[in-house]
């Protein structure tokens, strides 16, 4: 059988020396690590100098798109970056969708880009098929994300895939994000700061090749059946209509109807969840925003903004600088508390920190992004503030995991209180608090246990594992059991499978996939013989390597994987099944279950060698 899916080349860029090399993709490695996320992790593991500083030239950036990216399999848009992240100081993934970048990367003949070193001057990497250049970025440096994308599109036309950073990334803010095609984010953890530290403003890509499929005949049958399944989904129209608003009640439907301009979708996605909105009236009338989701635009409302138009304007500003909204607002709430308690002198905090004021928040976003006055301290993140103001400040800090603010949980932006896989995953994904890899039906409260059985089967969990994780699914509720820790092991494996192939992990998409279909599609697209057991083995290899790479960086269960105290306070998390206050001992057991289910040492989390 011929080969397909993979473009076949890896680009190596040494920014210090200004050297660029194209190398053939090692297909044996591609097979062992699947592609996309899996190969990014492997390439990072093999390239990084262990123990390096996240913002040093030794920390590489690995970009990549899996073998399905560029095909028309539904929602195969994912682009991944892997680096040592400055917030968590662990090797971590960031993932984004987008319209063009991933597809163009593949069409330019590349599966991955490895970027090392540090450019002496600001540059951007321009990849137009075989013509690859480092171009001076003097005209782009200092510009916002929006402005940078627009300037590049004005110069090179559409469609050009653009990944770039704003001013916060340039100034190494550890909670800055990079943007893909202006709409999707490589976020949380400070990936943009890694780009900034390398003087790399953007990567742009255009390609005229094409993504091939190994077995065209089988592809036709499989992809048609797959699309038909989505086409006949009774909730399709509603999902397209509402996007993420469906699951988040804090966006009032009438307001959404007023601002919605169009639904946008990442490349190949039949159930898009990106939004294009326009402010219909008031002082910001006519402001158009393309966003990863309208729910993001309502984040300021969670912190007290009452006018949705001001919320949108505030988020436009944060996105322009390239600031992570959860970390920004969490940090501002912390800073305000320190001012109120007299730990930060009131005259240092000018203008007054008011979480519900557009003026105040926009000014602080600027001060942080440009590191002005106290903004310079806040730009150091929670750790920066604690270092500056000491123990007294530390006592007042919100729940932190690896120095970051978990965004789901008591006292966080999304304040749901049931403790499921996403919540536990915030501690157990080495990259730090992110819910992206830990999805499961615990996302919704009070799901019947049989839903979990189906979900585990879909994720490819063996039946003996399902029996270990769920007990008495049909029995009386007080005898039912759900092992959240062991379940998370399969959520992580599932996320790895999807991300390595290039499939979006959002719930309304991944519900159409299952592990067996993934194995079939992988074999069909790539031509690499793959059945479910083989795929499971590769997936497990990837996530285990991810852990090993981080153990090599010094990740330590005793220090890095402790759930924060606040989770067990009076207003803390609740047990997913019983609704009773969550005990620390329960979470300790979940962590052990998680390790055990992976076959790692249950006490240390160390995989066997």
């Amino acid at each position: 059988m011929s080969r397909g899916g993979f473009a076949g080349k890896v680009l190596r860029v040494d920014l210090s020396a200004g050297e660029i090399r194209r190398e053939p993709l090692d297909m044996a490695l591609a097979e062992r690590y699947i592609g996309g996320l899996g190969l990014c992790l492997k390439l990072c593991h093999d390239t990084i100098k262990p123990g390096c500083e996240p913002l040093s030239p030794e920390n590489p950036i690995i970009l990549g798109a899996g073998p399905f990216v560029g095909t028309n399999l539904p929602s195969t848009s994912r682009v991944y970056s892997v680096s040592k992240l400055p917030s968590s100081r662990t090797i971590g993934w960031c993932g984004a969708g987008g319209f063009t970048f991933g597809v163009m990367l593949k069409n330019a003949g590349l599966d991955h880009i490895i970027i090392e070193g540090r450019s002496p001057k600001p540059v951007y990497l321009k990849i137009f098929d075989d013509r690859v250049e480092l171009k001076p970025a003097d005209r782009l440096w200092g510009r916002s994300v929006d402005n940078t994308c627009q300037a590049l599109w004005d110069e090179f036309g559409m469609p050009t895939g653009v990944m770039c950073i704003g001013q916060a990334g340039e100034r190494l803010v550890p909670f800055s994000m990079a943007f893909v095609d202006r709409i999707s984010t490589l976020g949380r953890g400070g990936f943009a700061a890694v780009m900034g530290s390398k003087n790399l403003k953007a990567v742009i890509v255009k390609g005229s090749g094409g993504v091939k499929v190994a077995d065209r005949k089988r592809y036709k049958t499989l992809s048609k059946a797959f699309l038909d399944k989505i086409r006949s989904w009774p909730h399709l129209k509603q999902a397209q209509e509402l996007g993420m608003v469906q699951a988040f009640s804090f966006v009032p439907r009438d307001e959404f109807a007023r601002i919605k301009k169009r639904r946008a979708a990442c490349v190949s996605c039949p159930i898009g969840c990106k939004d294009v909105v326009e402010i219909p009236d008031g002082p910001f009338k006519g402001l158009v925003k393309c966003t990863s989701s309208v729910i993001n635009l309502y984040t300021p409302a969670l912190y007290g903004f009452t006018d949705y138009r001001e919320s949108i304007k505030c988020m436009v500003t944060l996105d322009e600088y390239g600031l992570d909204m959860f970390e920004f607002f969490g940090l501002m709430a912390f800073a305000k508390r320190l001012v109120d308690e007299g730990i930060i002198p009131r005259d240092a905090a000018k203008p007054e920190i008011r979480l519900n004021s557009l003026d105040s928040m926009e000014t602080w976003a600027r001060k942080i992004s440009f590191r002005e006055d106290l903004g310079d301290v806040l730009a150091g993140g929670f750790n920066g503030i604690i270092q500056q103001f000491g123990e007294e400040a530390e006592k007042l800090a919100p729940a932190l995991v690896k120095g970051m603010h978990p965004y789901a949980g008591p006292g966080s932006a999304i304040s749901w209180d049931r403790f499921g896989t996403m919540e536990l995953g915030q501690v157990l994904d080495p990259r730090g608090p992110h819910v992206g890899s830990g999805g499961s039906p615990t996302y919704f409260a009070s799901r019947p246990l049989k839903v979990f059985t189906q979900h585990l089967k879909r994720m490819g969990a063996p039946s003996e594992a399902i029996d270990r994780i769920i007990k008495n699914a049909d029995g009386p509720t007080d005898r039912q059991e759900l092992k959240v820790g062991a379940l998370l092991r399969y959520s992580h494996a599932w996320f790895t499978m999807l991300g390595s192939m290039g499939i979006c992990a959002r719930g309304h998409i991944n519900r159409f996939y299952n592990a067996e279909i993934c194995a079939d599609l992988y074999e069909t697209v790539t031509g690499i013989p793959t059945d479910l057991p083989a795929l499971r083995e590769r997936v497990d290899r990837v996530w285990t390597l991810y852990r090993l790479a981080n153990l090599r960086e010094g990740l330590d269960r005793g220090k890095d994987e402790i759930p924060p105290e606040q989770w067990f306070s009076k207003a803390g998390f609740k047990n997913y099944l019983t609704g009773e206050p969550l005990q620390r001992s329960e979470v300790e057991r979940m962590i052990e279950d998680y390790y055990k289910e992976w076959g790692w040492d249950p006490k240390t989390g160390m995989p066997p060698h």
Partner: protein
Amino acid sequence: MAKYRIDVATENCSGCSRCELACSYTYTKAFNPSRARIQVKMSGADCSVRFSEECIECGICVDQCLYGALSKTKKQEDQP
């Protein structure tokens, strides 16, 4: 091969490129949206959909659009 009149409702277009992917795959045997005979451009809130002269009105792109932005009507054969 049957020919279709293709109608476009740009207000429904999501920019997903499924139409472009399908067209390029059908006629170049590889996926590349920029080599499709249909070209979708999104810019802020605006969207345009254009067909190139090589388009043979086969309707394959329409079948891939799940947003209701493309629709097709069979053309009468043997029309004078």
